C-alpha cells in the first residue's frame, strides 16, 4: 500500500502551519494583500491536496497510513507521529479544509479593516493545522495534540479583540471550561494505556475486538467511554460544559463560523465516532451520550427562542444541533451523526457567515430588534441565509432534512434508541424551526428598525471603522458573498449524498469493522414507519415556520404579550436558565474565594511570605541591636576583648576543674 497518496497526508496539516508561521512572524510588516495571499495559498493548497486525496481514495485500499517520525518509545509502548486516513477522516478532512478555505476567503473581506489582520489570518491557519492534525491522527495522543491546539486557536480567536474585557473573559472561559473536558479525555487516555498498552487506533481496536459488551454497567470500557464523553462534552459544548460556546461569540464572526459552528466543536462528535469500538462495548456509556445529546438539543433550543442577539441565537442553535449529533452517536448511529456533522458544517457555517454579512452590512449591530427589512438592502445575503434557514429547519430537499431525518429515524428504530429520544428530537426540530424563522423574519422582513442617521450605534461585534458613516444597510463585497454562495449550494445538495443510505455505506467499513452491525435493515413494514416519522418531522418544521410567521409577521404584538404573561418563565429562559449564575455560585465563587482566603491570604501570605519576611525582619532587629557595639570607642572595644578573654579563661578553668 505505497500509493503516492500516503505521502501527501503529512503535507495537509503542515501547509497551514507554514502559512501561520509565515504570517505570524513576518505579517506585521507585510501588506494586507501579501498576508491574504499567503494565508489563502497555504490553506487553499491544503484543500487542493485534500481534493486530490479524495479523488485517489478508494475504499478498497483504505485505511491509508503514513508514518512521519518516531515520537515515544518506552518498552512495549510506543507513540509515533503517524497519519491515518479512512472514510471517516476523509469526510472530516474535506469538511475542514473545504469550509475552512471558504471561511478564509470570507475573512479577507470581513477582517480587512482590522488592525490585527495578519494576526487573525495567522491564527486561522494555525487552527487549520491543529484541526487537521486532530482529524488525521493515527493515535489518541496525536489527536490530543490537535485537540489542545484547536482549543488554543479558539482561545486566541475568541479573545482576538483582547482590549475588550468581555472578549478576553470569554476566551478565558472557553479555555478553562475546555480544560475540564480535556482532563476527562486525558484520564481516558491513561486508562487506555494502562489496560490496553497502546493509543494507536488500529492496534487498539484490534485488541478491543475480543471484548464482550459490558452489560452489567461498570467496567473499564464504560469508564473510558464516560471519560471520553467528558472530553467531548467540553469541546463540543454539551451539558454541563456548554456554557463557553455562547460566550465565544465575542470572537469575530468568521471565527464563530469556522471554529464554533463548523469544525472545532464537532471534534467531540468525531472523537466519539472514532471511539465507536469502545462505546459499542459500553452500552451504559452510550446511553449517557444519547441522554446528554438529547437533553442538550432540547435545552439549548429553548434558550435560543428568547435570545435577541443574532449570533447568540445561532450559538445556541449550534449547541442544540451538536446535541443531535451526540444523540445519533448515543443510539449507535455514528454515520448519521457524522452525516449531520457534515451538513451542519455547511448550513451553520453559512448561517454564521450570512449573519456576519448582516452585521457587517448594518455597521456592527447584532441586536435583531434593531434590524428588519434587510432583504431589500442585501438580497444576496438574504437569499443564502434563507437557504441555510430552511436547511437547518429541515425542509426537504435541503441538506438538514436528510441528516436530521436520519438521526430521528435512527433514534426511533436503532436497538439503542427509544421513542423518547425521537419525541424530544421532533420537539427540538419544531423549536429549531421556530427560532430560526424568528431570526429570519426579524432580520429580513418588516421595516428597518436600526439607526440610519449616523454610524453612532455601538460597534458591538467589531471595532472596524467603516470609512463611510453607515447611513443605510448595504450589501457585503463579493469576496464575502462568494463563500456564501458556495456554502448555499452545499447546503442544498449536501444532503443528497445521504439518499438511499449511500453516505452510510461509504462510512460502513469504519463503523462496522469488528463492531456490531448497526441496524440498517429497512424492511417493508419499517419503511412505511420511516416515511410516517419523516412526515412528522417535516410537519414540525412547517409548524415552526408558521408559528414564527404568525408571531413575528402577522401579529407582531403577540410576542410581547406572551412574554409578559409568562413573566418569570420568560425571564428565566431569556436569562439562559441562570446556568451561568448557578455555576458561578456552585463552582466559581468557592474556587475564587477559597483561593483568595486560604491559598492567597492563608498559605501564600500567611506561611510562605511570612516565613521569608519574618526571618528577614528578625535578622534586621538583631543586627540593629548588635551594631551599637561598634561605637568607635576604643575603650569599649578593649572592654569587649577583655570580657571575651575573661570568658575564655573562665571556660578553660571550669573545664580544667571538671
Amino acid at each position, binding site marked *: 500500500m505505497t500509493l503516492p497518496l500516503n505521502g501527501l497526508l503529512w503535507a495537509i496539516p503542515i501547509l497551514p502551519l507554514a502559512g501561520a508561521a509565515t504570517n505570524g512572524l513576518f505579517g506585521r510588516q507585510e501588506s494586507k494583500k501579501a498576508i491574504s495571499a499567503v494565508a489563502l495559498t497555504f490553506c487553499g493548497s491544503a484543500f487542493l491536496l485534500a481534493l486530490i486525496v479524495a479523488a485517489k481514495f478508494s475504499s478498497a485500499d483504505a485505511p491509508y497510513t503514513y508514518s512521519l517520525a518516531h515520537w515515544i518509545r518506552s518498552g512495549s509502548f510506543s507513540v509515533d507521529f503517524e497519519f491515518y486516513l479512512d472514510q471517516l477522516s476523509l469526510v472530516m478532512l474535506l469538511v475542514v479544509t473545504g469550509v475552512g478555505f471558504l471561511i478564509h476567503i470570507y475573512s479577507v473581506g470581513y477582517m480587512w479593516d482590522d488592525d490585527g489582520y495578519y494576526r487573525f489570518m495567522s491564527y486561522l491557519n494555525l487552527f487549520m493545522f491543529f484541526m487537521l492534525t486532530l482529524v488525521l491522527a493515527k493515535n489518541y495522543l496525536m489527536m490530543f495534540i490537535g485537540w489542545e491546539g484547536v482549543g488554543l486557536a479558539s482561545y486566541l480567536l475568541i479573545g482576538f479583540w483582547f482590549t475588550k474585557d468581555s472578549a478576553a473573559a470569554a476566551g478565558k472561559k472557553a479555555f478553562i471550561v475546555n480544560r475540564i473536558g480535556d482532563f476527562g479525555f486525558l484520564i481516558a487516555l491513561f486508562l487506555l494505556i494502562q489496560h490496553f498498552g497502546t493509543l494507536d487506533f488500529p492496534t487498539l481496536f484490534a485488541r478491543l475486538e475480543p471484548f464482550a459488551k459490558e452489560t452489567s454497567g461498570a467496567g473499564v470500557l464504560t469508564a473510558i467511554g464516560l471519560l471520553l464523553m467528558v472530553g467531548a462534552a467540553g469541546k463540543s459544548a454539551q451539558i454541563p460544559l456548554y456554557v463557553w460556546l455562547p460566550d465565544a461569540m465575542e470572537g469575530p464572526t468568521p471565527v464563530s463560523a469556522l471554529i464554533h459552528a463548523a469544525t472545532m466543536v464537532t471534534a467531540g462528535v468525531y472523537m466519539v465516532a472514532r471511539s465507536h469500538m469502545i462505546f459499542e462495548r459500553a452500552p451504559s456509556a452510550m446511553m449517557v451520550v444519547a441522554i446528554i445529546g438529547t437533553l442538550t438539543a432540547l435545552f439549548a433550543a429553548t434558550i435560543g427562542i428568547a435570545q435577541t442577539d443574532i449570533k447568540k441565537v445561532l450559538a445556541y442553535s449550534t449547541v442544540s444541533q451538536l446535541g443531535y449529533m451526540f444523540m445519533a452517536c448515543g443510539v449507535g448511529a455514528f454515520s448519521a451523526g457524522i452525516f449531520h456533522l457534515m451538513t451542519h458544517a455547511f448550513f451553520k457555517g453559512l448561517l454564521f457567515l450570512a449573519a456576519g454579512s448582516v452585521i457587517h452590512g448594518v455597521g456592527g449591530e447584532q441586536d435583531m430588534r434593531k434590524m428588519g427589512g434587510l432583504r431589500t438592502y442585501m438580497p444576496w445575503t438574504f437569499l443564502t441565509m434563507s437557504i441555510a434557514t430552511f436547511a437547518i429547519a429541515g425542509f426537504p430537499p435541503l441538506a438538514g432534512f436528510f441528516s436530521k431525518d436520519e438521526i430521528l429515524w435512527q433514534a426511533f428504530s436503532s436497538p439503542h434508541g427509544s421513542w423518547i429520544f425521537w419525541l424530544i428530537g421532533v420537539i427540538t426540530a419544531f423549536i429549531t424551526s421556530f427560532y430560526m424563522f424568528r431570526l429570519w423574519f426579524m432580520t429580513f422582513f418588516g421595516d428597518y428598525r436600526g439607526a440610519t442617521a449616523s454610524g453612532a450605534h455601538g460597534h458591538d461585534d467589531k471595532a472596524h471603522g467603516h470609512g463611510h458613516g453607515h447611513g443605510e444597510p448595504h450589501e457585503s463585497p463579493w469576496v464575502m458573498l462568494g463563500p456564501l454562495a458556495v456554502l448555499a449550494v452545499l447546503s442544498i445538495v449536501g444532503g443528497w449524498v445521504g439518499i438511499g443510505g449511500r453516505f452510510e455505506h461509504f462510512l460502513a467499513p469504519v463503523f462496522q469493522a469488528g463492531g456490531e452491525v448497526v441496524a440498517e435493515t429497512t424492511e417493508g413494514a419499517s419503511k412505511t414507519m420511516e416515511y410516517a416519522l419523516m412526515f412528522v418531522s417535516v410537519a414540525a418544521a412547517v409548524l415552526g415556520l408558521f408559528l414564527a410567521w404568525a408571531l413575528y409577521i402577522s401579529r407582531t404584538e403577540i410576542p410581547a404579550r406572551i412574554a409578559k404573561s409568562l413573566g418569570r418563565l420568560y425571564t428565566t429562559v431569556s436569562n439562559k436558565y441562570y446556568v451561568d449564575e448557578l455555576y458561578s455560585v456552585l463552582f466559581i465563587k468557592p474556587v475564587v474565594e477559597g483561593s483568595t482566603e486560604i491559598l492567597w491570604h492563608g498559605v501564600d501570605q500567611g506561611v510562605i511570605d511570612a516565613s521569608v519576611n519574618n526571618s528577614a525582619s528578625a535578622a534586621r532587629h538583631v543586627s540593629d541591636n548588635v551594631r551599637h557595639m561598634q561605637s568607635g570607642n576604643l*575603650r569599649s572595644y578593649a572592654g569587649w576583648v*577583655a570580657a571575651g578573654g575573661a570568658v575564655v579563661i573562665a571556660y578553660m578553668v571550669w573545664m580544667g576543674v571538671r
Partner: protein
Amino acid sequence: MEIPLSYYLLLGGFLFVCGVLGFLIKRNIITIFMSIELMLNGVNLTFVAFAAHWHALSGQVFVFFVMVVAAAEAAVGLAIIIAVYRTRETLNVDQVNLLKL
C-alpha cells in the same frame, strides 16, 4: 631559701590585671600604651618564672621575642600617637572614635 613559683605567678598576674585595668580606665593614649607594656611584662615574668622552675629555656626565648616585639610596637605605637596628636590635637581616646559605622 627558694621563693615559690606561685609568688612569681601572683606578681605576674597582678601586673597583667593592673595593665588591663589601666587600659580600660585611662583615657590618655600614652598611659594606655604604658598599660600595654605592663601587661607584656606581667606575661614575661610568668614566662621566666616557669622557665626557671622547669629548667627549660624555651620560656626565656619567648621573653626575648616578646621584648623585641614590644620594642618594635613601642616605635610604631609612638609614631601613631604623634601622628594622631598632630591631626586631632588631643590624646584622649574617647575623642578618637572614628572607627565605627
